């Protein structure tokens, strides 16, 4: 099983969610985060002084999928989230040791 963490532009999130549902990924955890890679922030003005805000709002989507689904999930995210500009985000993949469905205590890929 693989955990896919995708950090995407907030404006692309709806498209990403739909694309993932289309390829059969239905469980996900979504959080609002702030961060940046190489993207510059923006300047704001307060009482005539300018200052840079370089922590930008992003959406983080986390999902755990079966190994066989990993590539189609990544492709779906890329299709939906990519604009070609700096600030599009990143995708990270890690291994998952165990998964358990709390309701009925299923384990392994059946719990996904």
């Amino acid at each position, binding site marked *: 099983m693989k955990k896919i963490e995708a950090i995407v532009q907030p404006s692309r999130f709806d498209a990403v969610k739909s694309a993932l549902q289309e390829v059969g990924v239905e469980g996900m955890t979504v959080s609002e985060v702030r961060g940046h890679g190489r993207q510059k922030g923006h300047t704001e003005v307060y009482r*005539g002084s*300018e200052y840079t805000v370089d922590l930008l709002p992003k959406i983080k989507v986390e999902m755990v999928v079966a190994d066989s689904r990993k590539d189609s999930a990544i492709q779906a995210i890329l299709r939906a989230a990519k604009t070609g500009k700096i600030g599009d985000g990143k995708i990270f993949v890690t291994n998952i040791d165990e998964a358990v469905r709390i309701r009925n205590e299923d384990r392994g890929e059946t719990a996904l």
Partner: protein
Amino acid sequence: MRRRTSRLVLGGAVFLCLLPFGTFAQAPPAAGTAVASEVQDRIAKLEQQVADARSSGDNAWMLVSAALVLMMTGPGLALFYGGLVRKKNVLATMMQSFILMALITLLWALFGYSLVFHEGSRFLGNLGYGVLHGVGAAPNADYAATIPQQTFMVYQLMFAIITPALICGAFAERMKFSAMLLFMVLWSILVYDPMAHMVWGKGGLLNASWGGAFPTLDFAGGTVVHVTSGVSALVCALYMGKRLGFPKEPIPPHSVVLSVVGACLLWVGWFGFNAGSALAAGSLATSAFVATHFGAAAAALGWATAEWYAKGKASVLGAISGAVAGLVAITPAAGFVGPMSALVIGAAAGVGCYLMVTKVKSKFGYDDSLDAFGVHGAGGSLGALLTGVFAVKAINPIFKNAQGAASAVGLIDGNAAQVLNQLVGIAMAWGLAAVGTLVILKIVDVTVGLRVSEEQEVQGLDLSQHGEEGYNLEV
């Protein structure tokens, strides 16, 4: 409607008065005298009713005005200042305004009103009205002949409340709550009460209505409220020092949304502050109302334009600050100047205060956190000065010559010397505020300690001073 009815009533009374002379001229003297005195009684009663009706209108307006001015402090100023500080200090900042609503009321009731409005010396009243003795339903003709003195007292109380609250903008995010309370008690007694007495109290040195030695025109408190609090704010900012991280770290407002709401409440409330200072519901109140509104409008445009030109964008914070600056500047002028002059005063304040808080503040590097000096101190001084320029007898014939006719008031009226009188009043306010505040800061510093510890400042005043968090939005 009331005017027409009262005129009809009066006309009828006069007719009735003349009737006996027409129809009973041949009647025996006894009957004629009885009717005549009955008519006199009725006229007297009618006159009383007319006076009561007029009082009723004035009193209604003044009570509403008092409520409007209180609203300026809570929630107006509480929101305006609250939105400008960091989230961790929002409650503490609002508490400073709120608690003064209670604290100053107590002081005013016990002796504050007396020290300001009872006769005494040229600098301070005596305690004749202590515990509001003698302040009841009967009007005090020295100040406002058509409303109960109690109305006048409670109206003035709202001014006494908001003035110290303005100072909090200077030491936001770093003063101990206990220190602030002690500071405010002392400031109210040592700075506000004398200044208010000098300008508004009978026998006051600067009183323009009663031939004070240096008659300073101050309709609603440009010097008494804004210059004193603004200069005190500057002294506090300099004495207490900058916030941790200032000016390297940007410390932007946590919610300009709250500040916008607050500023709008201030604008609306200011009609009570300025137009209510006419102390009656007549045409002078209207004139002050219009001047107030025009001043705010011109200043908002002035600041926004200046900022747009200088920075490429007109910020919302700038626009609302501009409006407040205009309201401050028009405060001393409201009941003395015409509407077009109000536009000029507003525009000058908008641009002038913009330069104060951007250029001057950054040049000298003091941390007047919420621009209490830049807006109130500077705006108030500018407004008081321009009052001497634009005041005209056509609006308010406050000066009379030896024959009792109205004489020139301000510069454009033909009395350039008034500008000098204004300068004296402004200088008095600066001097009293600066010296008084310095002394008080020293006392409080030595007894209670002014500033919170570094740890408390980092943690935030809401937690460290009040044990609370402003927003508990987590699940």
